[in-house]
């Protein structure tokens, strides 16, 4: 799904989290929103997911104005920084949640739900943990379950907020490759937020460098490295 961000701005009270930004995201791309804290990257992600409403501007999904769509209608899979798994449900129930929450008319039958959940558990390479509870899982496992849960609803776009932030270095490396693999398998437009420039450069097809509510530069990792558009980008990349 192609995403068009058209002059989106966001103010919280008197603070401008996002000055008007525009961005074109090609369908199927793996995009990194890269920047320090306070750069507006998470705000932009949340606006895409429908969790925040922009003060001005539009979001277009495949050319259609999606700005006014509710969160539920948007079908934007979201993986939170804290994973936000449902502690009182098993891994299976977490992943099946989105499918079970659908109104009866669109809900798949139970057997179908089970089949899809099993397939997703295989995709995240954790086929045996369906009966466990989130508090019995490691950080890396929880992250993958959160990913599977978001994928279960067959989203049009996948949004991840600092997906590797809470994990230690070794686990992070494995999961980075895992995300790349899943992206390649599903072909979904995927956007993730990070402050880690190694991560962004290594994983993404397209990197969006942000600072203080503005987009500093957009481009492929090698292009940004070769030709940083400003002093900020140059310093941030080399840091």
């Amino acid at each position: 799904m192609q995403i068009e961000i058209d002059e989106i701005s966001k103010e919280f009270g008197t603070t401008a989290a996002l000055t008007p930004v525009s961005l074109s995201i090609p369908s199927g791309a793996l995009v990194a929103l890269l920047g320090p804290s306070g750069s507006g990257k998470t705000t932009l992600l949340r606006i895409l997911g429908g969790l925040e409403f922009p003060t001005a501007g539009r979001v277009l999904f495949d050319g259609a104005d999606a700005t006014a769509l509710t969160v539920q209608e948007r079908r934007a899979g979201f993986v939170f920084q804290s994973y936000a798994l449902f502690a009182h449900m098993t891994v299976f129930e977490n992943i099946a949640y989105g499918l079970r929450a659908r109104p009866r008319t669109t809900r798949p039958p139970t057997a179908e739900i089970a089949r899809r959940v099993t397939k997703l558990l295989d995709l995240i390479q954790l086929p045996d943990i369906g009966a466990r509870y989130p508090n019995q899982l490691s950080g890396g496992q929880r992250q993958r379950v959160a990913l599977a849960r978001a994928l279960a609803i067959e989203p049009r776009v996948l949004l991840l907020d600092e997906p590797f932030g809470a994990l230690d270095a070794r686990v992070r490396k494995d999961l980075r490759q895992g995300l790349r693999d899943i992206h390649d398998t599903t072909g979904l437009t995927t956007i993730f937020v990070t402050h880690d420039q190694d991560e962004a450069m290594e994983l993404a097809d397209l990197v969006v460098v942000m600072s203080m509510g503005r987009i500093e530069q957009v481009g492929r990792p090698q292009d940004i490295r070769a030709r940083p558009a400003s002093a900020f980008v140059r310093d941030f990349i080399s840091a």
Partner: protein
Amino acid sequence: MGQPFVHKSPIPGLGLSAGITLSMLSLMVLLPIAGLLVQGFSAGIPAFLAAVNTPRTWAALFLSFRLSLVAALFNLVFGVVLAWVLVRYRFPFRKLLNAAVDLPFALPTAVAGIALTALYAPNGAFGQIAKDWGFKIAYTQWGILIALIFVGLPFVTRTVQPVIEEIAREVEEASATLGASRAYTLRRVIWPTLAPAALTGFALSLARAVGEYGSVIFIAGNIPLKTEIAPLLIVIKLEEYNEPGAAAIGIAMLGMSFGMLFVINAAQVFSRKRMAYV
């Protein structure tokens, strides 16, 4: 009461603190309860059972328990909603309202008792309205119910509020991103999180209501077999110098109290195991 095995410690005051604790506990709590048990069973188990097993006693125990259950159920529903409104919504005087919820804890029961009676008696502000509609509240079981709701009001709210405060917004947002309606989220994500605390509050409210005396005896009417609560029956037996009879009912009530305490604790242990947060 045996001496617990205490590890040696450089902190002084063990003897004094242990001594004060154990002796006061024994004198003020354990001894009186032992006294109750001794007196209740002094004439043997058959006599105890005979004292408890009368229609009047059963009616009183049953009445206390049944009305307390209904009151606690009301408090469960209302208490959860109240807790939600106090934590999640913003409106004028919210902080004042929050403090006021503790009023039933702080207000003496006799004061509540006469106030409620004045309010719901046929010539009272609310009693008048009821009369116009053909109801009678004071001196009936409805009056008792209202009094029991009053005394148990804060329990559910106070146990649930901290849990609501701890709910991470992201979990609710996650549910929405997965396509769930707000109602579904409340039912499948929020309520299960609140349930253990709500049930604890429910049990506390129930336990309090079953033993309540001061708030109820003014509004109750106190007709044996109809509106006579168990604690009143104990008082009556004492006035008749029937100490073993009073003791028997007291032991029955004590048994109910401890039963509920056990359920509360079991529920808390169970919920702690299941819900260790991610």
